[in-house]
């Protein structure tokens, strides 16, 4: 039972050593799937009909659902960042559902979740400066000047908790399932793991993607409004 991330090889680019790990290859696979789907949608919907039918209806329904969700969390003025969060939502969802097929989820690696949470952190600061201009920096000194370190620590705790929440949930699901598969005889591996996959991959996976996206949107609304 090997819980390490397998390293497929080391590539040297311009003097920097890059390790091609399982996480990286799985990320490319998920990105490839999303890109192919986007290309298919682009080609199949060259002319948008005013009254949609079939495929166009389904795609419009998905995009509109997420748009309503993000307008509810952010408000109309800030809604222009919702395409980024739609991509993040699809990425985390596909990585959680991919571990049904024996595929180690890239979000079970702290590098991936830290990158996503750091993106939210940077976006939060940029939106704060852009929409509140000088008041954003002044808000760190509210209500009293001595609160500055506490406010800074509160801001730094946000990406840490976001990344660890997603990482911990995905990693514990991966470990429990690999423990189950390595400790049970072949007969018990036929129908019963479906229940475990249903709980850990589907239910917790979908819940954690919803939580990640809505908490990120709440942080950005708090910083920019």
């Amino acid at each position: 039972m090997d819980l390490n991330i397998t390293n497929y090889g080391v590539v040297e680019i311009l003097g920097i050593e890059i390790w091609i790990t399982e996480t990286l290859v799985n990320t490319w696979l998920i990105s490839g799937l999303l890109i192919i789907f986007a290309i298919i949608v682009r080609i199949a919907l060259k002319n948008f009909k005013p009254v949609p039918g079939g495929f166009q209806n389904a795609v419009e329904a998905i995009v509109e659902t997420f748009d309503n969700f993000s307008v509810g969390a952010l408000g109309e003025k800030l809604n222009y960042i919702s395409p980024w969060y739609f991509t993040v939502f699809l990425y985390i969802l596909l990585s959680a559902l991919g571990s049904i097929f024996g595929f180690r989820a890239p979000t079970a690696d702290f590098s991936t979740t830290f990158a996503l949470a750091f993106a939210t952190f940077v976006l939060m600061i940029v939106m704060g400066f852009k929409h509140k201009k000088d008041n954003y920096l002044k808000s760190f000194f509210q209500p009293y000047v001595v609160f500055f370190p506490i406010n800074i620590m509160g801001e730094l705790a946000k990406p840490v908790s976001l990344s660890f929440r997603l990482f911990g949930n995905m990693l514990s699901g991966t470990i429990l399932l690999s423990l189950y598969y390595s400790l049970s005889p072949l007969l018990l591996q036929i129908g019963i793991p479906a229940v475990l996959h249903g709980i850990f991959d589907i239910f917790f996976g979908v819940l954690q993607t919803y939580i990640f996206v809505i908490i990120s949107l709440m942080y950005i609304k708090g910083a920019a409004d």
Partner: protein
Amino acid sequence: MSDLAIVMAAAQIAAGIALLNGLFTTFGQARVAAQAIESMARQPEAGDDIRGTMFIGLAMSETSGIYGLLLAIILLFANPLVNQFIELMG
């Protein structure tokens, strides 16, 4: 007892103690769910809003329980002190 055995035994005991914070997590989450059920019974029209907020509350209060589980997993499976010890012993 050999040194490596003592280090590994200490890691296992520490992992067991780290999981004790699951006790408080259970009570916190039960309280969130209980309040959500009571307020849904009191005002069924707001049911969807309350359900969404309940899930967010459950996930936020689960975070510290996950921290304990993560620490236990790291102690058991990827313990840096044990690896360093094995490297030192040759």
